């Protein structure tokens, strides 16, 4: 279907050929110097090429892939776009990319650096032109370590004297818990993310040894345990780490810090004699399948990958460009950083482009981190990761015959319709509606809104839960198989974090503890604010509502930072009392507590406001009567105040429970499911199935339907409870 549409667009584009000035749209995610260099090239291209103008659109990196997937099939995407080559496989499968002609491929192989064109070939055809490449390399503070180490033994020997974790000094700074950086060691120990047959997986020999190697770096205190990008930058630029493993984007940071540094290829692994080979990303200019001016767009693509553009991007943007000719320019050749990354290019492994690669990151990261923490030995961890990966990438369930299902649903709907019509006729609904037709007319806009924003997505979601995503946006009907698979916990043991029941227990614990603490804290503060001796009541009330007023993802990110092992405020405060730094996300209990603290902070103001309102409705003399009757403050609260505000609190508790049950942001942003996905709740688990496990949208939708069912049941139960309460 899509291919046909793309072809039609292509033909219509040809037919409409260059009458007036054509505007070509180029999407990219660059900013700063790189964006400026691109803009300069685009302006030049427009001048050099009559009848063509280029419009650049900077799209945020977080959303560019999604925007492309949505825009191109609908015909309002770019003609050309620049992004990392890893997405290539998925994009070819979904028909977003137009293949390039054979002569362009031949030309690219001659003009581009070796190793930058091959990764862009998918099923025998070239789907883009390289414009730059990125990989990690070894950054060295030349004042601390003048000579580049050639082997890991040399590296560690040079690093060791600088390591003093208690003083916040490390021999080597890199994001040790990240598979992207671990890849260098995987390859250096002879392993990688492909099995012996070349298919994706973690079974390659050498992988286990590489994990043990990384664990040793942490255990010996050479590398900070939960380093993130900020910590690596901080350590290296403040000269508290002589080495860092980082990519080209780090150069600007180092230059800004003004430290003497040099970049060299990652060393050879002493145990194997093989070079540590990092993952290679090719920044690729892609030709959109939806372009209305494919010829002009192709010309633009070739110029963007050409020598003039490359020179500009290298000099202006500091990009390790892929065009050979750029390096003939003496100024480019004189840049040591570009030279170093070009050298590293020769020993880098291109990131796989198959869509399944996206389902490998999560299990691989779980394995890596559990080995770093010392929870599992490397072989077991890799076995588990491999098993997870197999489950995540298993073929979708076989298609089922939708007929019986459709008949069943049809009968059900028919029955409901008959029932509704009979009830309606008895109550003369039609006549009454006709009488108030003008009133109903006023309701139409709101009704349409509800229909489009609530009913339609709900029905679509429910329908998707009966289907399996076959890739490329194709779905097949599988009946209730998704539900059976989830509820029978067929793939995972009950105590594994991916099991529905494990996640359900965590979710319930999460909800109960949160809402309980929200209530306790909210009520306590509301009662305190009511005390006559509290001054500046209005100020306090506003201050206490602030946590609620700040967007929750911002709060979540702030708390995430506060829980950081090395940089976080919480460990710093604990440190004053002599407590060793806590790796908050290393264990379930502490990671869960971190999530809980964040969400309690976010949630108590709501309960406080509701309680404050409810307290207003209590006549003062009832509490006074209780005081005279002999009740102390505590008894008064439990026997009089609380029962009287309970009916106002119940809806708030129901609402709070639903919000908390689905509090995706906190889980995703604070613990991110660590350790090993054990702190995931149902909604974040559904997200993983949809977006980081091979796009199993049907499976994820089934999760969503189950969540809906649980919350619906909870709401009905709570209604019944309050009803009996009210009728007492």
């Amino acid at each position: 279907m899509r291919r046909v549409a793309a072809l039609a667009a292509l033909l219509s584009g040809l037919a409409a050929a260059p009458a007036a000035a054509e505007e070509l749209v180029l999407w990219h995610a660059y900013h700063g110097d790189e964006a400026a260099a691109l803009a300069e090239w685009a302006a030049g291209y427009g001048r050099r090429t009559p009848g063509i103008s280029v419009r650049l659109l900077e799209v945020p990196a977080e959303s560019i892939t999604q925007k492309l997937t949505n825009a191109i099939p609908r015909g309002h995407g770019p003609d050309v776009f620049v992004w990392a080559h890893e997405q290539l496989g998925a994009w070819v499968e979904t028909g977003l990319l137009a293949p390039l002609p054979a002569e362009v491929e031949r030309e690219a192989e001659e003009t581009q650096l070796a190793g930058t064109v091959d990764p862009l070939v998918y099923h025998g055809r070239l789907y883009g032109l390289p414009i730059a490449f990125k990989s990690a390399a070894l950054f060295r503070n030349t004042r601390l370590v003048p000579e580049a180490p050639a082997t890991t033994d040399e590296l560690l020997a040079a690093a060791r004297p600088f390591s003093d974790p208690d003083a916040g000094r490390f021999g080597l700074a890199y994001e040790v818990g990240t598979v992207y950086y671990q890849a260098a060691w995987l390859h250096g120990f002879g392993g990688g993310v492909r099995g012996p047959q070349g298919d994706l997986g973690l079974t390659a020999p050498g992988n286990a040894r590489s994990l043990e190697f990384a664990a040793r770096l942490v255990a010996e205190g050479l590398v900070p345990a939960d380093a993130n990008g900020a910590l690596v930058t901080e350590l290296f630029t403040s000269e508290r780490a002589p080495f860092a493993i980082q990519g080209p984007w780090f150069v600007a940071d180092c230059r800004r810090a003004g430290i003497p540094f040099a970049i060299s290829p990652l060393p050879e692994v002493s145990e194997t004699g093989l070079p540590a080979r990092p993952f290679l990303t090719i920044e690729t200019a892609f030709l959109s399948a939806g372009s209305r001016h494919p010829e002009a767009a192709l010309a633009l693509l070739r110029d963007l990958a050409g020598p003039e553009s490359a020179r500009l991007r290298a000099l202006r943007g500091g990009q390790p460009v892929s065009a050979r000719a750029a390096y003939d320019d003496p100024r480019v050749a004189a840049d040591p950083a570009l030279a170093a990354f070009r050298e590293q290019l020769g020993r880098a492994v291109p990131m796989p482009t198959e869509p399944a690669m996206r389902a490998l990151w999560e299990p691989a990261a779980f394995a890596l981190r559990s080995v770093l923490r010392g929870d599992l030995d490397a072989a077991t961890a890799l076995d588990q990761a491999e098993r997870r990966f197999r489950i995540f990438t298993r073929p979708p369930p076989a298609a089922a015959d939708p007929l019986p299902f459709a008949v069943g649903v049809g009968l059900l709907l028919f029955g409901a319709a008959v029932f509704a019509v009979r009830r309606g006729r008895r109550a003369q609904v039609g006549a009454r509606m006709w009488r108030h037709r003008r009133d109903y007319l006023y309701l139409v806009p709101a009704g349409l809104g509800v229909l489009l924003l609530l009913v339609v997505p709900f029905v679509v979601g429910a329908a998707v839960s009966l289907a399996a995503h076959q890739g490329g946006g194709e779905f097949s009907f599988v009946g209730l198989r998704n539900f059976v698979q989830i509820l029978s916990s067929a793939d995972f043991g009950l105590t594994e974090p991916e099991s529905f029941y494990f996640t359900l227990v965590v979710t319930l614990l999460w909800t109960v503890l949160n809402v309980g603490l929200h209530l306790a804290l909210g009520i306590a503060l509301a009662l305190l604010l009511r005390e006559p001796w509290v001054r500046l009541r209005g100020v306090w009330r506003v201050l206490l509502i602030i946590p609620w007023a700040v967007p929750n993802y911002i709060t979540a990110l702030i708390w995430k930072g506060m829980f950081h092992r090395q940089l976080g405020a919480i460990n710093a405060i604990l440190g004053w009392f002599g407590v060793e730094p806590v790796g908050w996300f290393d264990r379930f209990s502490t990671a869960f507590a971190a999530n809980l603290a964040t969400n309690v902070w976010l949630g108590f103001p709501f309960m406080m406001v509701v309680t404050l309102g409810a307290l207003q409705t209590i006549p003062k003399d009832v509490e006074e009567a209780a005081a005279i009757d002999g009740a102390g403050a505590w008894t008064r609260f439990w026997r009089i105040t609380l029962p009287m505000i309970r009916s106002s609190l119940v809806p708030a508790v129901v609402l709070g429970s639903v919000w908390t049950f689905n509090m995706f942001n906190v889980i995703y942003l604070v613990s991110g499911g660590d350790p090993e996905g054990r702190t995931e709740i149902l909604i974040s688990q559904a997200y993983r199935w949809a977006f980081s496990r091979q796009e199993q949208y049907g499976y994820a939708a089934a999760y969503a339907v189950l969540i809906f069912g649980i919350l619906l049941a909870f709401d009905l139960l709570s209604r019944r409870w309050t009803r009996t309460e009210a009728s007492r």
Partner: protein
Amino acid sequence: MAAVELRQVRKRYGEVEVVRGVDLTVADGEFLVLVGPSGCGKSTVLRMIAGLEEVSEGELTIAGKDVRGVAPRDRDIAMVFQSYALYPHLTVRENLAFGLKVRKFPKTEIAGRVDEVAKVLELSGLLDRLPKELSGGQRQRVAMGRAMVRRPKAFLFDEPLSNLDAALRSQMRVEIKRLHRELGATMVYVTHDQVEAMTLADRIALLHRGVLQQVGRPDELYDRPANTFVAGFIGSPAMNLLDGVLVGEPGAPAVRGPGLLVPLLPGSLPAEVEAGRRVKVGVRPHDLTIADIRVATSGDGFQGTLEVLEPLGWEVHLHVRGEFGPLVARVERQALPTPFGAGSPVRLVVDPTKVHLFDAETGARIGGDA
């Protein structure tokens, strides 16, 4: 049972003083009514006795014990609120039992006392209902029962009848009176309704602007009001208070004013009161009688014109206007001359023994032994 004593009690809210040095003793077993217009501080006095408000200055004792700083629950008093303040989520039985339950009385005793009180107040059939299922009068009785069941040292009532309709109010008045007789308890009762005050009180304490105006038996306040405020407050319709000047010899005193001449009882004035003094003359409406306008006697009395005639069956209220201002008289219908209606000239006379005199400046009573 216990006496309640206030010595120079003051209550201030910031700069505002709402109770200004009240001295009051409620004897053991006495029914004292605190009466006064709204905002006079009577409820504040009651709430200080209950411990719901702190005493800003002065002494407060219950049963001889200084209770300043003692929590309400430790004062062993019970209070009935204007709004009844029933616990809305508890049944009548639970409402009645609450005070005993939190004081950890044994279950059997609680049940016994609740049943007993319920019987006295005719609540036995309502024990399992919630307050919202009761009528106003029933709620009122529950509020009373909640106080009674505790058998406290003293009962405090804060306008307990003002939310009831007139019929129910007079019925409850009788009931409260009966209760007081049966329990023999010390009771302090706050109201703005002088009828309640008159009918219920052993003694009345009349407050105005935070100051006690007069304390005494109802008949004392009625017969010998200490000042114009008490005179105007107690009695319905209110006492007529008109401006005048003392004239005549000490042997034949009188008050003369615009349109009025009121002879006084010879020797009724204290020696130091001299002629020429500006006074207010007070006459209760029912002490006025219509003089025959055609008979020109000495010309004493109140000369005016009838504005409105309110027939009330046996009696009639006459609203008369003269140079002295408005005046109300309450006379037998039989005594009306004919023809008589709005616009008719009328002269009203009063028995000299029934005349009250007050100083025009201070409002204090002149003569009598109040």
